[in-house]
């Protein structure tokens, strides 16, 4: 039996798609929210380091299934490698209802006003596609606020002198520092820096009918055993379902967005949980499948009118793949600086986000999430032997004596860091897979060296007996913070979507995830993706007359 026609299809139940499904459903549109994974289940994925979002050596707790979802990684020498979530190099994002918001560290950063105007704040960077966003911080501010209150954020921006202006405080008080947070933050203050508690999408007090955080040692990378961590799976998506207007269709792999001879989207083709090909038609299609999978879906949606894929008339879909080059330093102490109060990261500082000589952008610094035993076996000073007695001595002596200070460098986008599709490699359903190629802009590594030196300085001030830098910024970007592959812009020849996430030239096709981001900030991006979900939805609901857009 054919699926009933609906007003809107949302592809991807993550940070962006979950918000869009809720907003459209409460405004009376009938919605089907498609998700390739299932509902997350804490009991099915206990605190197993080897099957988590931090280490996928035995599989990914929240999907995708490594046997069904290969990708291709194209190396600098042009050779191809088939990669899966367990091999690494995959650019892995969780595939379940809620996606990364189920298992994330839950930092709830707003980008700063400069992050939307990087090109005009600094200057053009040679070899980049650096540009300003077509929208400003002021445009997005009310939508940040909505995300903070509907999904739930603990924080207090008044302690951050670099915080962007806001109309309303965050709804819950900030978290206290853990031991490493307190000691390193005090060192930062002594150096004239400005540490403050990281805003978090976790409950510092009971909120929205769910309990407060219990400081679980293994928080980031895992689902919350008491549901004190806030994602779209336990906030907006249940709200959408409660309206009676939204069906969440799980275990469905979307293959293609269909379009008609007038160039409008008509629905999607997908494979259901039994691998059976299905069609769902709709008045509107909103793609929110992550920067890699959104690009893949648009590129795989070819027709006579769109031989290069939807939105790709000027070859911009999949371009400018960004993420975050993590960079920082490690300090060892002669006392137990880690108390393992979860999630570990507790203070941040925005002193290094903007306005430093010779640096375009920058990044925030935060103390790092709690070390996990297996991953910690890979943390050693340069040149140290990684096995034998030396390994074991270090492991046992230092797992509680280490503090890491690091942060996400704002990457400078470039045209050749990109997602394409590889027709010679297919997934379980025969759909051409994501191929990732290119590399970061060389300036990212220079920025990383600078930020790592700052991190090392603070760890030393905090009394470290040994420090070393971990400098990122080389190689292919992407990863969990993937962004930029369907950038928004005013010029259809140099962007994929307009300022409302509407694909240029196709008025009923939208993108609502990190793909829209022209640049990716020096911050964890999830709150910005949620805000973009509200922003795109607001445009749709204000302009939708029931069957089409008001002219």
């Amino acid at each position: 039996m054919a699926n009933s026609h609906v007003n809107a299809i949302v592809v991807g139940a993550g940070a962006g798609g979950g918000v869009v499904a809720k907003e459209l459903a409460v405004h009376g549109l009938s919605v089907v929210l498609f998700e390739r994974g299932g509902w997350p289940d804490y009991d099915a994925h206990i605190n197993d380091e080897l099957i988590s979002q931090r280490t996928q050596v035995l599989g990914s707790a929240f999907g995708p299934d490594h046997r069904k979802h290969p990708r291709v990684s194209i190396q600098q020498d042009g050779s191809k490698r088939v990669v899966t979530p367990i091999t690494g190099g995959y650019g892995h994002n969780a595939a379940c209802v809620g996606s990364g918001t189920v298992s994330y560290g839950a930092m709830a950063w707003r980008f700063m006003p400069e992050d939307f105007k990087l090109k005009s704040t600094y200057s053009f960077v040679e070899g980049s596609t650096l540009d300003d966003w077509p929208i400003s911080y002021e445009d997005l501010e009310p939508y940040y606020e909505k995300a903070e209150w509907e999904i739930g954020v603990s924080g207090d921006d008044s302690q951050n002198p670099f915080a962007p202006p806001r109309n309303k405080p965050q709804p819950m008080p900030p978290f206290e520092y853990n031991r490493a947070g307190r000691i390193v933050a005090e060192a930062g203050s002594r150096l004239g820096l400005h540490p403050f508690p990281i805003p978090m999408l976790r409950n510092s007090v009971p909120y929205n009918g769910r309990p407060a955080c219990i400081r679980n040692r293994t928080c980031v990378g895992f689902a919350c055993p008491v549901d004190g961590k806030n994602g779209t799976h336990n906030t907006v998506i249940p709200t959408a379902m409660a309206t009676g207007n939204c069906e969440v269709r799980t275990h469905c792999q979307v293959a293609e967005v269909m379009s008609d001879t007038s160039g409008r989207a008509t629905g999607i083709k997908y494979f259901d949980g039994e691998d059976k090909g299905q069609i769902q038609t709709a008045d509107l299609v909103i793609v929110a499948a992550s920067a890699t999978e959104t690009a893949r879906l648009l590129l795989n949606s070819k027709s006579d009118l769109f031989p290069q894929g939807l939105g790709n008339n000027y070859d911009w879909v999949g371009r400018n793949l960004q993420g975050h080059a993590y960079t920082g330093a490690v300090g060892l102490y002669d006392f137990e600086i880690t108390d393992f109060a979860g999630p570990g990261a507790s203070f941040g500082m925005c002193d290094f986000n903007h306005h430093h000589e010779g640096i375009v952008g920058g990044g925030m610094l935060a103390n790092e999430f709690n070390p996990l035993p297996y991953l910690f076996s890979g943390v050693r000073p340069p040149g140290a032997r990684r096995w034998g007695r030396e390994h074991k001595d270090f492991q046992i002596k230092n797992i509680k004596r280490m503090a890491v200070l690091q942060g996400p460098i704002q990457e400078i986008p470039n045209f050749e860091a990109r997602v394409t599709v590889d027709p010679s490699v297919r997934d379980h359903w025969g759909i051409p897979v994501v191929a990732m190629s290119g590399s970061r802009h060389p300036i990212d590594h220079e920025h990383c060296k600078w930020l790592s030196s700052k991190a090392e300085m603070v760890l030393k001030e905090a009394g470290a007996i040994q420090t070393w830098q971990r400098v990122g910024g080389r190689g292919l970007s992407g990863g969990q913070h993937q962004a930029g592959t369907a950038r928004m812009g005013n010029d259809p020849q140099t962007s994929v979507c307009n300022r409302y996430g509407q694909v240029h030239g196709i008025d009923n096709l939208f993108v609502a995830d990190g793909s829209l981001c022209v640049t990716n900030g020096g911050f964890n991006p999830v709150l910005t993706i949620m805000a973009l979900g509200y922003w795109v939805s607001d445009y749709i609901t204000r302009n939708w007359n029931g069957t089409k857009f008001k002219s």
Partner: protein
Amino acid sequence: MSLNRRSFLKTGVAGFGSIMLMPSCVTRTSSSWQFFTDEEAACVIALCEQIVPEDEHGGGATEAGVIHYIDRQLVAVFDYDQVLYQQGISSLQSSCLDLHGKRFETLDKDTQYTLCTSMEEGNLPGKHWGDLDQGRFFQLLIRHTMQGFYGPPRHGGNKNYMSYRMMGLDFPLVVGRNHYEHLS
């Protein structure tokens, strides 16, 4: 599980077969292990014990049962590493017989340590290794040993959370609680 994976490898890796080693599907004679022969297992046990040795902090990889972790995974998630293990063990044994006239696991610990150092640096006689990168094989052994020693016991290693106990990490994971006494 492995059937699905193999069918994906066949369809998905056409053209890149040289990059990902194909599962061997070798028929094994009687053995106490799921993948290894008894001789291979003895060698891997000795190698893992070099990587995480027993010392004043407590037991090593042998006591933690790391071999069970690796053996189990080689017929499951790590089936694509089967050939690498077989060839790696065989090449190491040829090197040991050549240099010392004995199999690796029968050599004294200091000699084993020196051999591991050589393997890590790629300095064992090349004639026994063919196309196989001995340093890469050793790095794989390190990763798998660490996973078995520090990963959750339900995968076969880290018996009774012994590595967690050595590091003083509570289990379960909420600060202020220690439930070790409830474990067998």
